[in-house]
């Protein structure tokens, strides 16, 4: 959502102050971050106290595995949101790129399937970015349209049938392999998060993102290539969607055109829980990573108590509200 019209004085002062701050502090608000970490620790302590089996390596691995897909997608979404845009198409992009790669399973070459999946995700992200920057349509509309288009592409290409990459050892390794007894999806998620932290904090592109999201006009007037930044974040979001699709496809050994339903809203919720503002320019990757872990721990604990997934949905919604409310009450300005 482009929010250029809403002036945001607090953000502007923050931006100018941010220029003087050390880059490692960019977007880092100690109070909010610490409260999130504290919440995570409390939840872990409570879960451990309730169930001794919580702290077993097996269960921790389960939590991280369950979180990894959403975490990867959240990184892409966070970058898009930092630039003040929104990407609703990630679920569609994930299934479309997964199916596109899955069509090449008969070629029996895992690198080819993986490369095609990633390439198609990147391509759809590029199309999103081009439509937003060239056609100047709001990203909400473009990516909403793309969600329908990409899902349709996935269904049309696969004929509505699931694809099974059973014989591609290299592909399956992405979901089932492990290095140092940590599963590959967790490595992938961790690396994605790490890379994104480095980029947002220490690169000029990161500075550009915060500038574009904070105040588009000021960014443009100070010579920042706003459109190029937007293009890049949509491409990254497409790429992370494709990575998530690879991880899930490999873990389940099943590429279905109907997967990832409603994931866009889950991912936006995680990003918001992580302190990312929909108006852009505010939030950090660390916050989002912690938020993903919070959701993972909550769901895992509720699973241990045998709570139905529908009730879990309500509890998760309440958790998000509890975390977001105090933070938003502190702010004087509003965004949307």
């Amino acid at each position, binding site marked *: 959502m482009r929010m250029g019209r809403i002036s945001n004085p607090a953000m502007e002062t923050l931006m100018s102050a941010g220029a003087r701050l050390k880059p490692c502090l960019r977007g880092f608000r100690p109070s909010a971050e610490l409260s999130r970490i504290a919440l995570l620790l409390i939840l872990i302590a409570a879960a451990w106290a309730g169930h001794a089996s919580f702290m077993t390596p097996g269960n921790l691995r389960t939590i991280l595995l369950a979180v990894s897909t959403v975490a990867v997608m959240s990184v892409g979404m966070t970058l898009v949101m930092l630039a003040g845009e929104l990407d609703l198409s990630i679920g569609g992009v994930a299934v479309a790129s997964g199916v596109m790669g899955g069509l090449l399973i008969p070629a029996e070459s895992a690198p080819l399937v993986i490369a095609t999946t990633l390439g198609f995700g990147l391509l759809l992200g590029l199309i999103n970015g081009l439509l937003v920057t060239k056609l100047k349509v709001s990203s909400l509309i473009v990516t909403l349209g793309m969600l329908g288009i990409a899902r349709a592409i996935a269904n049309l290409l696969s004929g509505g049938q699931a694809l099974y990459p059973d014989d591609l050892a290299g592909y399956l390794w992405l979901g089932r392999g492990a290095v140092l007894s940590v599963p590959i999806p967790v490595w992938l998620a961790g690396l994605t998060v790490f890379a994104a932290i480095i980029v947002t904090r220490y690169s000029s592109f990161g500075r550009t993102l915060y500038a574009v999201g904070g105040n588009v006009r000021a960014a443009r007037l100070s010579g920042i290539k706003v459109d190029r930044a937007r293009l890049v974040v949509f491409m990254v979001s497409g790429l992370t969607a494709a990575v998530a699709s690879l991880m899930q496809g490999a873990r389940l050994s099943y590429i279905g055109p109907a997967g990832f339903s409603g994931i866009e809203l889950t991912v936006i*919720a995680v990003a918001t829980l992580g302190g990312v503002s929909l108006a852009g320019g505010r939030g950090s990757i660390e916050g989002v990573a912690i938020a993903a872990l919070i959701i993972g721990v909550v769901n895992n604990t509720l699973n241990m108590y045998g709570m139905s997934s529908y009730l879990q*949905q309500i509890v998760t919604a309440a958790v998000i509200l509890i975390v977001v409310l105090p933070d*938003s009450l502190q702010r004087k300005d*509003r965004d949307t």
Partner: protein
Amino acid sequence: MTALATPTPHGPSALKRVFGQPLLWLLIAIVVIGVVTSQYFFTPSNMENLLRDFAVFGFLALGVMLVMLTGRIDLSVGALMIFSMIASIDLMQFIGPYLDIKMMSRGSTYVGPTVPLVLVALAIGALAGLVNGLGVAYGKVTSFVMTLVTLSALRGLSYTLTNGRPYYLRGEGFKWLGEAAWGHVPVGLIALGIAFALFAWLLHAHVVGKRIYAIGGDEKTARHSGINVSCWVVLAFVASGVCAACAGILFTSRLMSADAPMANGYELTAIAIAVLGGTQLNGGHGSPYKTLCAGLIFAIGLNLLTLHGVNAWYQNLIVGVALIGVVGLAQGIGRHKQAL
């Protein structure tokens, strides 16, 4: 069009405003396409079907448009429309005996009076809208997040209340709501017409509208000129909740059942319709007339694709491309006009 562009002292006349609308011409074009390409399009039964679809989308889009006018967004409408009916059925089973209302509910089939059920559903819609509104206006939670939270919570509640099984509705009242028509004009459309008249009157001929548009146009100025912004935002969400409940009542009466996974993703369709009708995401621009034009175009478009036997997957593809294309085109025209 040129006549429209030249400013007159009193602005363009109402007639010119109505007929100078590109959406109206798009609507006429799509109707002509329908009549020409399909012999079944302009038959009474198809028209009735189409208008019943339109009534559901129309209600959702009207409510969402009102919230968007204030510069907020409401994502909860799709979940709310089903939840209001499911919760209403549960509540009626609970309070029915106390109110001495005769009804039976065998298993998950509701056989009972329609009017109280509908009233309770509307109240639940208003209540959910109130929660959204209070969270946004007084809790200062971003509307996108607040309504996203209620969306997922209401879906979860719907599943929990029904245990994942559909509720069936039996009764003359539901049949009437879902199937009756006065000379091929379905009941739902009449209800939508009344809602539209109310919206049009409030927004264009009443001080309420001036306030709502002022809030969307520039909230700070509106607040400084003494408008109680928070109060009006809450009311907009309540109205959107009631509209969603109306849509839910019509939708479930037509299907004679209410099931938790129904109407999945309708919130995005409603927003797409509102935006297609020129409603802007940052508030202050949009009208009920244009929104309903867009809703009708959408309903006819889907109907035509079905009539021509287009695969549902292609339908999604076409809807997606059309959405981006139409909004892009409209914005291109808008920029062109500004440049002149």
